[in-house]
């Protein structure tokens, strides 16, 4: 059983294009996240959603627009792709609550290459 799944695994596209990455979790968690991991392996949070509501938006360009149709799904749409957007994007989920640590369950990642 896949806990957090992402599609596609690999995405190669040209500058200026628009693309989407989909994420689904079957853990029953109420919070989902998007992270970006750069070439130096640094992992940085981009967005978090709790029960479909945007909680965190970490100064990400407006070209990035997350959408959460329900608490099990969090998609990421990117407009006008730039070379600097090339990275691995990870979706994650966690159960947030009183006394519960933000333990993250990560998807397998989507490697985005912009040419």
């Amino acid at each position, binding site marked *: 059983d896949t806990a*957090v799944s992402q599609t596609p695994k690999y995405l190669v596209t040209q500058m200026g294009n628009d693309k989407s990455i989909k994420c689904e979790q079957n853990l029953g968690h109420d919070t989902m996240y998007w992270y970006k991991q750069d070439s*130096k*392996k*640094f*992992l*940085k*949070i981009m967005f*978090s959603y709790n029960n479909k509501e945007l*909680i*965190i938006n970490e100064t990400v360009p407006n070209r990035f627009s997350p959408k959460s149709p329900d608490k099990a799904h969090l998609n990421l749409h990117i407009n006008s792709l730039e070379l600097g957007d090339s990275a691995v994007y*990870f979706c*994650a989920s966690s159960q*947030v609550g009183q006394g519960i*640590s*933000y*333990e*993250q*369950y*990560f*998807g*397998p*990642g989507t490697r985005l290459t912009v040419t």
Partner: protein
Amino acid sequence: TQLLEQSPQFLSIQEGENLTVYCNSSSVFSSLQWYRQEPGEGPVLLVTVVTGGEVKKLKRLTFQFGDARKDSSLHITAAQTGDTGLYLCAGEGGNKLVFGAGTILRVKS
């Protein structure tokens, strides 16, 4: 801004050796987590430490949270080739996780 400094950035050792990875900050965290990431996969949670001074063991891995909850260490005893991977520490603060830059561990046979 909360920052976590992780050291060393890269470690290459022989099978059977011991090693320690450090994670330091000037900020206090509610909890600190350690993850391991293999190539082509997402990070996987190893452990969460919550209480200052807490020590947790996971087989040959020993995790410690500093008394002031600002730093943590991961010690591996008798490293094996299967321990190879990227180790990430992450501090919980302000309803999110802040990740260290990671330590790439390579264990040679």
